């Protein structure tokens, strides 16, 4: 039994024809199922939880990264697999899992190649890709044995489960950020501010800071991130959304999610 959870963007006119093609392809492949829509009035977590309770074995997110992130916690600990039909922008998860765009994704769903992947767990919430803190005033304690503190200004500290790597990544770094290795990677990345950005800042049009390099990588199973300034909490961005504040404890949850992957997956 399949549940197709449509992102709110599916209602956009520009996706109308693509959706029709996707639905036809799913019918041809014999894997059509119930359709539910994520809107501002519905909670995708509850939709997924209810569907799994009713016997759904495959939950297919039709949309982008944010829809997928919002339903992860509902899939953990169940026998249901996550499938993806990428639609619209922000498709880094689909890229990592090797899912092609639009109706081509239906064939990957039909082939049903299943992999079990790790998740990160921050306090009591699961995440797929990363948790990040944009501050230098932090201390991280890794596996209870040692602490790491940034010593330079303007850096980002992140804990990754997996991450899309550019094509020019040196071979020495390609084994990092594997979602099936049972470990997370804590990274410290100084943020680069270009001359162009400084000029844009003068005119109030500053771009987001660009991460120009990874400085440090620590493989860890459990990490605590806390502020070094007393009584000050720092926002933690989880899977791209500001969600929690320091202090937080992050640990790996091995083999926690069942996903349908394509041949072009990056792990």
């Amino acid at each position, binding site marked *: 039994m399949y549940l197709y959870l449509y992102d709110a963007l599916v209602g956009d006119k520009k996706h109308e024809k693509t959706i029709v093609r996707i639905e036809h392809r799913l019918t041809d492949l014999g894997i059509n199922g119930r359709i539910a829509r994520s809107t501002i009035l519905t909670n995708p977590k509850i939709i997924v939880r209810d569907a799994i309770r009713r016997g759904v074995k495959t939950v297919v997110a039709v949309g982008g990264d944010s829809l997928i992130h919002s339903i992860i916690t509902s899939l953990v600990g169940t026998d249901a697999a996550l499938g993806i039909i990428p639609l619209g922008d922000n498709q880094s998860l689909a890229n990592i899992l090797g899912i092609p765009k639009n109706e081509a994704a239906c064939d990957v769903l039909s082939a049903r190649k299943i992999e079990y992947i790790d998740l990160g767990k921050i306090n009591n919430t699961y995440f797929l890709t990363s948790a990040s803190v944009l501050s230098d005033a932090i201390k991280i304690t890794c596996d209870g044995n040692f*602490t*790491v503190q940034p*010593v330079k200004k303007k850096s980002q500290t992140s804990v990754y489960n997996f991450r899309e790597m550019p094509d020019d990544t040196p071979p020495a770094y390609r084994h990092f950020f594997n979602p099936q290795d049972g470990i997370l990677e804590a990274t410290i990345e100084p943020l680069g501010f270009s001359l162009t950005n400084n000029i844009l800042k003068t005119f109030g049009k500053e771009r987001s800071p660009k991460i120009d390099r990874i*400085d440090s990588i620590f*493989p860890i199973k459990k990490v605590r991130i806390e502020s070094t300034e007393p009584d000050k909490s720092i926002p933690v961005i989880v899977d791209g959304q500001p969600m929690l504040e320091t202090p937080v404890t992050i640990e790996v949850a091995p083999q926690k999610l069942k996903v349908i992957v394509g041949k072009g997956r990056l792990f």
Partner: protein
Amino acid sequence: MFKNSDIPPSADTETIIGSTVKVEGDFVGKGNIVVEGEVSGSLKTDGEVRIGTRATINANISAASAMIAGTVHGNISVSERLDLTETALIDGDITAKSVSMTPGAVFNGKCAMGGSSKQPVQTSSYKNAKKEEATEDN
């Protein structure tokens, strides 16, 4: 995305301690470690440790092999090979199966080699050795 290090990591590098971080405590790893920042406490791994020119280590190091180009205040114990480059500064004792030392490296401490039970050989820096020679001549 990744910066250019003065010590390129090998393909199986597990940990990179960069120049913009300070690590304190007992670091225990299983693979190769590249250090370019500050480490205080202890550093232990089954693999290779590479200490870059900008690194400052105030810790005892235990590894299978090591390449030192930076500053180490602490004892170094490796089961295989230890390489000290011309920028290395070691203030502590060394235990290794074999040691290579490039001219310019500074080493103050005792050295035990070859995995034998021989008494460690007392060594001193080039400057101190010269001073001792001058004293003997007088």
